[in-house]
């Protein structure tokens, strides 16, 4: 578990593609470089999306966990 402060949490639980990524991209826009963003999603299909989005945009996927059907992604704004 990261102990660094999360700047913003995006609750995308219950939302289906493309909304989890769209909301993540929206939130990332408002962050300063280096800040951490946490996203919660229940969309199993979005797991690969987050890794792909991170790779394509240069934002680092720091952590990825799943608990009780809820996927948690922590990303660092580049």
């Amino acid at each position, binding site marked *: 578990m990261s102990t660094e402060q999360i700047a913003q949490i995006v609750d995308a639980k219950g939302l*289906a593609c*493309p909304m989890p990524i*769209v909301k993540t*991209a929206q939130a990332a*826009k408002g962050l300063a470089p280096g800040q951490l963003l946490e996203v919660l999603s229940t969309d199993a299909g979005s797991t690969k999306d987050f890794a792909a*989005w991170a790779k*394509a945009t240069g934002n680092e996927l720091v952590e990825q966990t799943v608990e009780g059907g809820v996927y948690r992604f922590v990303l660092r704004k580049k």
Partner: protein
Amino acid sequence: MEDEPINIVLFSGTEDRLQAAAVMASGAAALGKKVNIFLQYWGLEAFRKDRISTSLGLAPEAGARGAALVAEAAKAGQQPWHATLRVAKELGEIDIQACSLSMDVLKIEEEDLDPLVDGVEGVTAFYLNAGDGHIIFI
């Protein structure tokens, strides 16, 4: 990732295909890619102010079962295609142009169209703006 835009020629006017186009545009916008959408025929018709929020039906492949599943998704909170597109437009650079030929054939004036549509252009301008980016036909 290359900097080329994603270009969508949107010919279809049923809700499922319009949603598919909105999803493709959203994904591109989320990746920071510019999106150019070219509205032809029934895709253009769907952006009429008096049609955009109405029930536009589904592609024939849907059948009764498909229709029921789509209705279920909507009931579960999935937003309509035009809402998906509006959100995507806020997120990234999405330019939506009406095909001038279709405007003529369907007898549509610019003021008949929803503000989502940014203008009218011909196929040549579309190709110019498309550059070396992928072109998707829906």
